[in-house]
């Protein structure tokens, strides 16, 4: 099931090269294999993708979001 999540992108202090999408409500998603363009701190990004219930990660910071597409709303 596809979902759309909007929030800021930031590097997590946990894990190695872990990038997180944090919504305004404070929910944290771990971005799965994020493309290069997404790997930098950004204030507002809209990501469309799927939560992968069958994936575990070294960071374990929240649901794992596999990215189908994204749109940078604010840098």
């Amino acid at each position, binding site marked *: 099931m596809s979902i759309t999540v909007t929030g800021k992108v930031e590097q*997590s*202090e*946990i*894990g*190695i*090269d*872990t990038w997180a999408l944090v919504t305004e409500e404070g929910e*944290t998603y*771990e971005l*799965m*294999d994020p493309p290069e363009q997404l790997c930098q701190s950004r204030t507002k990004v809209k990501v469309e993708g799927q939560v*992968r*219930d*069958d*994936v*575990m*990660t*070294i*960071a*374990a*910071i*929240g*649901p*794992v979001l596999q990215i189908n597409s994204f749109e940078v709303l604010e840098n």
Partner: protein
Amino acid sequence: MKKFLLFSLLFVVGIWFALSNFKGLAAQGEFDSIILDFREDIPTTEISQQIEAIAREYDRTANLNSIFSVGDNIYTLKGDKDLLNALRKSSLSQDTEYIEPNYIYEALETANDPRYNEQWNLQKINIEKAWDETKGDGITVAVIDTGVSRVPDLKQTNFVKGYDFVNNKENASDDNGHGTHVAGTIAQSTNNGYGVAGVAYKAKIMPLKVLSRSGGGTVADIAEAIRFAADNGADVINMSLGGGGESKLMKEAIDYAFSKNVAIIAAAGNSNANSSSYPARYPKVLSVSALNSTGSKASYSNYGAGVDISAPGGDREGGKILQETISPRTGEPIFVGLVGTSMASPHVAGVAALVKASGVSNPEQVYSVLKQSSLKVEKDPLNYYGAGQLDASAAVQQAEKGKITFRDFFRWLRDNGYLNPGFWFDGGAVALIPKIIMVVVGYLLAWFLRNYLPWTWALNGGIIMGSSGLFFLQGFYIFDLPQWPFRVMGSSIPELGNAIQGSIQLNPIFASVLIPFGLVALLLANPQGKWFAIGTSIGFASCLGVSAVVSPALWGLGTGIAAQSFLAINALLCFGLAYLASKGEKQLA
């Protein structure tokens, strides 16, 4: 009024008497000899006479401690506590500056690795004393992670055959850096004059790669790796990974490994949520939360439901966990500090290896030893720490004693609390003994007023709700749901002001005479309600009185004499209120 004062006095004396043994005993060292420091202004002949007198009376010879002791007149003689007390009472005390136990200090096994001094985390878990007993010889720890590369500081570490489930090949080297770091915490080559140390450095590492270069992997691969470990002689599995949902495949793999005597340790997760993530959440897995360098819960660490024990995971501000690993960019060896429950879990896996090397093979018993030997955190209402903080030395000692004793019934309940995978019970949420004292003191106080009291359900209910509350409910969790409703239902009325936020500091508005006073004023006219109000006042008196002695922590007033006075005065007021209200009732009746 005289009677009232007498009751009050008895009340205070009773509480102090009941609790006089409760504050714990000061830690005492061991000694088998005694130091005598003779004064320097007395002639040597007098010292000789005293030493002869000791020889005559106690059949012991006091000798100068060393040739350097001549100037200070420091003598030692064999002796125990009884002799120490006898000497202190004898005429010797006039000729000496002090007579004291010659405590024994033991040289501990340490490590010559140059950066060992940066590993605050190993000091924290008391590793050196554990190394005196075992270093994990003969035990295999499977590291289910991003793979493990043989960096220079893993050169002397023993490896057994592993597997790379991501690329389907035998060589399970690391392309991320996480797995090598985790393996380093477990068994970094130690005493090799290079780099840093590991917890169980004589244990063997089985590298199992299930997570890709980016740090993620599927449940199917992880489940296969667990079975591989169980079939290939692993004794302990470490899984510094988490996420996803419940999986039958994974649960079956875990149950299979457990049935083959494999202890399975996993990270609780890093989303600061009040439940362990999978796979730590599975009943047969020991879930590890993370501590920072000050020994508090690290800000990111999961807590609450499912957390079994805590260990150092570090944080960005205080200190990280330092090991040698590979740089994900260049693949070159690099010493790097990482943080996370990923780092906490291998501490526990390493100590599990030490426990297994000490002769405990059954994983259920390994978990019990780890939990029971952990440093208990007295006040842990939100279950940040599980059974406590990992203590390698105590764990090894307990393993070698081979004695499993349950600390208390509630701890046992929690250890075995998986009656249903949907909920979980934390036996450490409430310090049991103070609660029992509160109920007992509550009934003692009621007994003082027995001439005025009818023993109705309302009165009993009041005493319970005022003193201890239905405290066992405080440890009840339903996974992924907020826990505060259970904390509220499990709180006594004086604790309600701090139940929602789960603070251990009492709220001075709730923990005072105000509520009993309000209840008495409101319910005095009600034939049943008044006895509840009176019972509540008695319960309050007990709860506040016991808190004043055992753990005076009050919001805004700290934990010192101010908080103690506030609680004690309010306890007296509550008791006085109960006395006056019940006496008034009797006269009216």
